[in-house]
């Protein structure tokens, strides 16, 4: 079924919502684990690094979904925003491994904010095919 004029969410739109939501949930855990770790719970360290793997993986998955959204719905914004977030998360990942806390802490906060903003954006309105929305 081709998306015609009907203002209805496509599977691609729903998938993006799902991935961004999972991304937001995963990234919200990161400061929690960091706090556990720095107050002396060693398990917090492995949770934080496992969390980093999960968040980054979801980020890359989100890039793929955003490309599909771009192709199917002619909406480039999700892709551009996701690319920025994933770039930040990649830097964040290595800043964490490197112990560069001057970067890791502010960039971590920034990345959480960015994912939350994206979460609001994808749920605020239905993702429609560009032509359909403007028609």
């Amino acid at each position, binding site marked *: 079924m081709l998306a015609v004029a009907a203002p209805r969410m496509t599977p691609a739109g729903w998938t993006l919502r799902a991935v961004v939501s999972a991304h937001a949930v995963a990234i919200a855990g990161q400061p929690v684990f960091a706090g556990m770790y*720095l*107050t002396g719970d060693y398990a917090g360290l492995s949770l934080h690094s496992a969390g980093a793997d999960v968040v980054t993986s979801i980020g890359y998955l989100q890039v793929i979904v955003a490309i599909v959204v771009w192709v199917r719905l002619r909406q480039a914004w999700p892709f551009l925003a996701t690319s920025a977030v994933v770039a930040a998360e990649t830097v964040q990942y290595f800043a964490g491994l490197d112990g560069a*806390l*001057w970067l890791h802490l502010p*960039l971590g906060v920034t990345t959480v904010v*960015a994912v939350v903003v994206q979460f609001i954006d994808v749920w605020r309105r239905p993702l429609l095919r560009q032509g359909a*929305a403007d028609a």
Partner: protein
Amino acid sequence: MPSGRGVTRRQMLGIGGALGLMAATGLTSAAALARRPSITGAQLRSAVPLPPPFQVPLPVPAVLKPVGTSGGADRYEITQCEASAEILPGVTTPMWTYNGTFPGPTIESRRGRPVTVSHRNELPVPTVVHLHGGRTPAASDGYPTDLLLPEGRQEHSMHMGHGSEHGMHDPRAVVTELTRDYTFPLDQRPTLLWYHDHRMDFTAPAIWRGLAGLHIVRDDAEDALGLPAGPRELPLMIADRAFAADGSLAYPALDPTLRVRPGVREPYLAGVLGDVILVNGAPWPVHEVDAARYRLRILNASNARHYELEAVTGDGHRLDLVQIGADQGLLAAPVVHRLLPIAPAERYDVVVDFSGVPIGGLVKVVNRLGSGRTRDVMAFRVARKAADDSRVPRTLSTDLPAWRRSDAVRVRDFAFRAGRMHSGHGWLIGGLPFDPARTDVTTRLGDVEVWRLIADVHHPVHLHLVGFRVLSRSGRPPLPHDAGLKDTVSLRPGEAVEIITRFDGYRGRYLFHCHNAEHEDMGMMANLEIV
């Protein structure tokens, strides 16, 4: 052209742009304001003119002669006294010293041959002597409340530091007056130890004023290796200091008498750094060497300053720093570094080969973590060609303990972080400031344990009595300089280190603590009871 309900594309772009600007500003501010590389502590500025680097010759502390060698043991006497020293040329600096010198005299000893040092306290304050890295019975380990009082100062034992100020008393303290014998069995691997003051609440200012000296343990196996020796073996005690206008050592103590109120002024809570780098008590010294291999036995005796050392020739070439030993003696095999990090109280035994340096060339020892004058440490002037029959064997030792995780009977976690103690800022282990009356860890003699240490800022963590091995850093393999047997491990900000050790030797009450001396005085110690 509305793109959604109520929000125009123009508004979306505006909000997005503002968020992007905020993120960019935040990150650039972090880059600009944060210390990169990170440094824990604040630097004092000297109020006297500082000498140019590499002018003063490197002193080597004199080896103390025993007063008796009978009965299979050596006996030494050390008087702790005030003395004046000329550390900066033309400047007289009053100090607290062991036998009138800074560093104190070096004690040379043999593995398994006991040494008794009789300390006499002629200083205006109580003292405590701890032999750092010594495998010492608790009675001679220098527990912080086991005070050695100056003559006629018995009344002070009731008014010292935490004891009175915070209503804590240590019923187990063994206090003596004027003299005290410390006996060291030295049944341990040969290595460079150091002795220093360890008095409750006032360790940092006492070390700063000069109460530190070297103690070397040797054995036949090490002597037989053929390492550089004699004048080609140099102890290097690196320490930073700052000087007040009157030539005295500047230190931001809350109580300048160093008797009642512990701690430092607020800006220096994270640690006191000086702007003068001393090696063996001389500012930025220079040492003439042969074009040959030298064994440098490096100790960081600074209160809080970390170094990343490299040896740089005149043409910018970096010499190999071949590490042969750690805090607790020889490695299994040499480890080659170009850059060697060293935290307070750590020791590295390093061989440097000057044979490739042109005669007359200068090799600077540089601290990559320093800036301005604190970037330089010392220099070697290669003076002459010389024969060299020394060597660095591929196998240095075969007696390193091989504890495995599976040997451990328990695992303990400790967080080292800032917090509040009593009424002010302090430094805590596991959320608690030091209390002599509280046993934090009880373990059985002979038990193997894994300890997981987590830091908020830099914390060089030191265990008394035992050596340990580093198992991991932040869940990853240890770094090259973590090799061998250590007694102090440097935790960097946000880092976790796993160590493994066996609590053997002696039963009794010992300590583990952060060896940032300011942190140590402001709560960051805990009791280790071996039963």
